[in-house]
């Protein structure tokens, strides 16, 4: 089962590298914010997988919960700020 979790974590890390292309080269700031939100979702799952690999889930679950809250608040704050700022695209 440890091998399975390691393979899942490596697949998610490769997906994060692909999404990072959209963060770096994406046209405009909105594409970058959307891609950062997607990276945050993948990071939440990677943190839980690290907990299962190290047999320390009861510690990593709290970090993952805080990461979910911060990802949500960050996306909402960025979208509200861009909406307030006007057309900068």
């Amino acid at each position, binding site marked *: *089962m440890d091998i*399975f979790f390691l393979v*899942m974590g490596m*697949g*998610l890390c490769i*997906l994060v590298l*692909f*999404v990072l*292309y*959209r963060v770096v080269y994406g046209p*405009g700031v*909105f*594409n970058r*914010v*959307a*891609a950062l*939100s*997607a990276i945050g*979702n*993948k990071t*939440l*799952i990677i943190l*839980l997988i690290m907990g*299962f690999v190290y047999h320390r*889930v*009861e510690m990593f*679950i*709290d970090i*993952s*919960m805080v990461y*979910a*809250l911060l990802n*949500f608040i960050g*996306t*909402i704050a*960025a*979208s*509200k700020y*861009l*909406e307030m*700022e*006007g*057309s*900068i*695209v």
Partner: protein
Amino acid sequence: MNIGTLLAIVFMVGGLFFFTTATIGLLRFPDFFTRLHATGKGDTLAVLLFLIGFFLYEGFTITGLKIVFIAVFMFLAQPTATHALSRAGLRCGVIPWMKKGDTK
């Protein structure tokens, strides 16, 4: 290997599949709204499938309860964030992608 672990493996492989499709959509679609359409729904479903798999692997403990809490929170928060981001994009004047001869 009992039945819960087997079901957990099935759910996690499904979650990785939906993460992959959401990433392909984010990379390949032509403009901001279609990319957000792919990644908003695909990522929500993938996170939920992964968390159900973790819950089935962990069982009914306090950690499993926290995993269920994260699942409920993500199910509420992710569509809210996607909606706020797309509304900000529309109000800031991101032009939606259309077909060639289409004016409206």
